[in-house]
């Protein structure tokens, strides 16, 4: 038995529009209520501005727009997930706006399936895999990859 088959990881599940996504809890730091965001003129459209988080200035992005999903209205459940992204060399913290945070699920590695190869509006290379939870399909996001070469840097 190899380690891979027995590994169980925790995932933070959240909602973007009508779809369900998850991120490895190890790359999530904190969940904040949506507070006032300071706009940064001439920033890329998915970048909503900056916030003060414990004395540090963090950029905040709209995850819907980053993944090129339809823009959703700000509701009472809208929150910011503070995530730590980046490679081995250096990590930065970033706030991601999601429509609703659902739960933390413990999922064994072997019950995460490969992402579908066709269909859907999502940029597929940002999706690490899919798992089923209470009859719902949840897509696991590769957080590092999303911010590695998004329009954030290149605009």
């Amino acid at each position, binding site marked *: 038995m190899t380690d891979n088959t027995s590994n169980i990881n925790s995932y933070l599940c959240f909602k973007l529009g009508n779809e369900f996504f998850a991120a490895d809890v190890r790359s999530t730091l904190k969940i904040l209520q949506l507070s*006032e965001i*300071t*706009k*940064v*003129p*001439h*920033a890329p459209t998915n*970048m909503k501005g*900056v*916030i*003060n988080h414990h*004395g*540090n*200035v*963090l*950029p905040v*992005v709209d995850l819907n727009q980053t993944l090129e999903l339809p823009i959703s209205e700000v509701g009472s459940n809208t929150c910011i997930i503070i995530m730590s992204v980046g490679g081995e060399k250096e990590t*930065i*913290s*970033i706030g991601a706006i999601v429509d609703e945070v659902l739960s933390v699920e413990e999922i064994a590695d072997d019950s995460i399936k490969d992402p579908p190869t066709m269909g859907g509006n999502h940029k597929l290379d940002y999706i690490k895999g899919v798992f089923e939870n209470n009859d719902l399909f949840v897509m696991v996001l590769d957080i590092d990859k999303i*911010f590695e070469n998004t329009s*954030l*840097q*290149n*605009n």
Partner: protein
Amino acid sequence: MEDFHKLFYEEAGDLINSLEENLMLLEEDLSNTEVVNEVFRIMHSLKGSGAMFGYDNLSHFTHELETLYDKVRSKTIPLTTHIVNLTINSIDHINAFLKEDDNEDIINKGKAFLQQIELSSSKDDKTEVNEKSNLTDNDKIKPQLNKKLYLIQFEPNPDILNDGTNPLYLLDELSDLGDAIIKTNYKNLPQIEDLDVDKCYFKWEIILSSTESRTTIEDVFIFVADDSHLEIEIISEKDVFSVADVEDKIKDLFLNNKQSIKGIKKLIKLYEADVVEAEEINDEVVVSVGKEDTLPLIQEAKQETTPRSNVKIPEAIKIDTVKVSSKKLDSLINLVSEFVTTQARLHNIASSNKSVELNALSEDFQLLSRQFRDVAFEMRLIPVHTMVVKFKRLVRDLSKSLGKKVQFIAEGTETELDKNIISSLSDPIMHIIRNSIDHGIESPDKRLNSGKAETGTIKLKAEYSGAYILISIEDDGAGIDQEIITKKAIEKNLIEESAKLSKDEVYNLLLLPGFSTSKKVTDVSGRGVGMDVVKRNIDDLRGEVNINSEKGSGTKITIKLPLTLSIIDGLLVGVNNSKYILPLTSVLKIYKVSNAEIENAYKNIIDIEGIQYPFINLTDKFADAHKDKSVNHFITVNYHDKIVGLIVNELYSEYQAVLKPIDKLLKHTEMFSGASILGDGKVAMVIDTNKLITHFTN
């Protein structure tokens, strides 16, 4: 122990720096004995501390060099340019040892290098065979002439063993300096049940008969002197032990506690009378044995040692500098930053409160925090001089290997800059200098042909200019050929073929990524990292790079840097209901203008008090969903050598802004140099006026 290694590493770095500096001086003036002594002292310190921290190979290596310079110092061998050159090269070996002391490869290279040195010093010996043979004779006599008797009392701190120092090694080292009679004092040794094995309970009393100066003896204890009790006393200027039997007598009395120290001192004074005769005899020996030319040599040596011991040992050492780790300074700055932010909150509460007392208190705090900030920043300032040594070395090595003649001049090196800026500045400047030598300065014959002096000049100049520092690197080389650059930029698709560029625009092409004009890839520059990296590094420091060149007569690159990195005085303004901070240093005047005036302005130029200003309407430029047209303030700011106006909606107050770095994700928004947290916890972007204006005018 980690910490101690770091300490050693830092210390060694300082020593190596000053070693390089001294060697450069020596290269210019071989007869400078002060500098020779300094080099010797540095080698000695490196050896001593190296051994203490387990860098045995480093210690061994520097020991050989120390021996070499000892010979130079005592004039046993003459100092040649060759030796100085070798020593300069030795620095690379020392650095290698510092990184990896027990690397076989490095050890072997070091050994080979030492052989080279030995060879060179013996070669020099041979050329003066006669003199040398005389000197060896003299060696036996000369020390006797200068031998002094020291009484050293050394009581280490009981915790000395915890620092990884073995006092016995120090005593060993001391014995190397001459004939030592060492007595261990056990008085403090507790009963066995009270004994703490980690503590050192001993004191030592040593009578040392040595030719070395007091400074050399002090140097043995250099790393423990701070927390140990150390007394060095010259009990006799004469070599009392040269008198028959005296040494044995004293030894017996001293070691077996038959006489107190006072008694022994008296005894030695008594014997001094006998020495004088012996010395006179010795002098005669010199005259008869030594040839004529050796005599002045000895006298010279004598003359040198006396003033040195007089000058270098002030009666009471005054300490007016304290060494503080930069980590501590960094955390001080962090605390100051937090203090300033907290003060902003206090100010916020006070101003919404009617209490006069609270407001007065808040104002006092503001004043204090400003002074506090300035003092803390000042502590981190170090002179540009500290990095110049590196450049000198680079110019020297590189011009040699490229067969060019280059002299390096540094001006205004006393100009001070934040330590963090200096440390990130040295690489870009190195790169610029490398470029200058490689591409700029021509080969000697080419220079002669074009009517220039054979030796090229690279001049580094640092100066203050308002709230900025200007550092320029100027060479009198071939200059930059605009045509070649334009051609290359077209080749690389960086510009359109039809594009007509101004001179400045052409030079700015050099700062674009992936632009290298060298025709061939050399070892030195042109490895794909070019001026764009320099620009990026300077950008990170919120600075600017400016290139100016005259084909055929040289290139000047100027770096403009802000004085500090983390806290600035700013002006808090409002644009479309968001708050922004403008650095106060670039703000000149504030006027009130009406909407009509702005709307009627032709080509974005407005006339105020008879002067026409071009302006940028930030309420337009920063507009998204809504645009606030209410109140308009016209702020004039410096933009290079022009004055430009910025239009905002609101003016709030002066504001001390703690600059928080904005993440890499926001880097492309160059017009903001950072963000700052306001008293109410919200964030305001800090505008870099120069970059903002450049952004909107291009």
